[in-house]
């Protein structure tokens, strides 16, 4: 056990995890997930919100097994290595709001940090604007952290608080198995299923679930975090997490080239638009929200699997944010940004700045 722990805590360990995630993501695309979207935490949570009917955007409704796997894989790894620690109480309402605006920003760009690198690995040049925005947003978050920003301490709490999100994910899995997709039907039991669009593109259920579980285990062990990769570079000049993030990019790029999934350009990229300013600004909002909440959307799922109730609240914030994004016309589509996308980004930035300036250490 100690040898495994040491490996995953090492530079080689995090790079190995990044490589594995990159290959798995590109393969998931081969097996049916949307193009340049082998894994996208934001998009997939948005699809889950749709599957549950929290929004009714017909093209993005599918209860993604990868997300369920992320949480349950992390849970299994945390239990196996005695790291499951139910905890919470560090400004949950702030984390909820940060989750909602992180999602809204990500859906203006059309992807979370994971998908931003997968888009780049598939040749989508628009991802460069997103990554630049992400870095800018995280940079602003790093400035707040340097100046004493904090959401306060989490406390140890009773087991139930740590088990709730994993149990809800088990419940989602039961729903998925009890209401399986029926060809040409937009609804099966209580769940919505897309008939076209990205929500209709998915790898076979058990393949997606297995991929999610494996990544959940690997990421829990290695503390893989895409936001942390950029934050630690900007804040400390530390490159540990960056090694994993870049490994993901390289592995996905090589796998895409091998599978003929690489197509360079800015126009007509899959599930993407070319409004450069808003690709930048959407991700700047998401990056700032992730930095203020202490983890990328994947990392929040993995922490929730370890019993972190505050991370679970962030996840719920993202799912609710996705529902708002599609109900209020905030989310982009390949045709461009939504009718209210600009307003949402500005309100989100204002909310994050308010949180950044007001949440500080009290003596």
């Amino acid at each position, binding site marked *: 056990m100690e040898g495994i722990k040491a490996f995953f*805590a090492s530079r080689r360990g995090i790079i190995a995890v990044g490589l594995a995630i990159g290959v798995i993501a590109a393969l998931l695309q081969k097996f049916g997930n949307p193009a340049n979207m082998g894994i996208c935490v934001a998009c997939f949570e948005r699809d889950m919100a749709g599957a549950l009917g929290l929004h009714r955007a017909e093209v993005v409704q599918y209860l993604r097994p990868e997300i369920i796997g992320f949480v349950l894989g992390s849970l299994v790894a945390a239990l196996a*290595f005695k*790291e499951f*620690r139910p*905890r919470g109480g*560090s400004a949950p309402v702030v984390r909820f709001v940060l989750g909602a605006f992180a999602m809204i920003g990500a859906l203006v760009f059309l992807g979370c940090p994971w998908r931003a690198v997968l888009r780049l690995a598939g040749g989508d040049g628009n991802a460069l604007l997103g990554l630049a925005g992400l870095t800018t947003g995280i940079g602003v978050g790093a400035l707040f*952290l*340097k100046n004493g920003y*904090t*959401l*306060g*301490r*989490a*406390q*140890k709490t009773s087991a139930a608080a740590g088990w709730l999100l994993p149990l809800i994910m088990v419940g989602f899995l039961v729903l998925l198995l009890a209401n399986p997709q029926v060809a040409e039907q937009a609804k099966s039991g209580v769940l919505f299923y897309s008939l076209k669009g990205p929500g209709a593109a998915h790898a076979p259920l058990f393949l997606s679930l297995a991929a999610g579980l494996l990544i959940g285990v690997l990421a829990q062990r290695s*503390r893989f*975090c895409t936001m*942390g990769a950029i*934050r*630690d570079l900007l*804040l*400390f000049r*530390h490159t*540990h997490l960056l090694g994993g993030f870049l490994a993901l990019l390289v592995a996905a790029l090589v796998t895409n080239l091998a599978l003929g999934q690489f197509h360079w350009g800015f126009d007509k990229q899959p599930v993407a638009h070319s409004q450069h300013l808003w690709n930048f600004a959407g991700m700047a909002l998401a990056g700032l929200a992730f930095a203020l*909440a*202490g*983890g990328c959307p994947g990392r929040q799922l993995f922490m929730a699997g*370890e019993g972190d109730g*505050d991370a679970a609240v962030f996840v719920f914030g993202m799912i609710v944010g996705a529902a708002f994004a599609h109900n209020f016309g905030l989310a982009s589509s390949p045709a461009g940004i939504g009718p209210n996308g600009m307003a949402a980004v500005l309100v989100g930035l204002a909310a994050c700045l308010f949180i950044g300036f007001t949440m500080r250490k009290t003596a």
Partner: protein
Amino acid sequence: MATTIDARGLSCPQPVLLTLEAISAGAEEQLVVLVDTDTSRENVTRAASSRGYRSSEVKAEDDGYRLTFTKSRP
């Protein structure tokens, strides 16, 4: 004397930030950091060693760890 930092319950990257701040402010020969998760334990250990502090003791304490670091002789 040892400089003691209580980073229990704090989100990433605050345990590392507090540790590096203490080192920059001229910490004592010994640095003690209290953390409550394995992630923080690994991150703080990695950060301290990058600044010449060797991990000299790891003690499980109160559902967390008491990490002791000693300044390496140049």
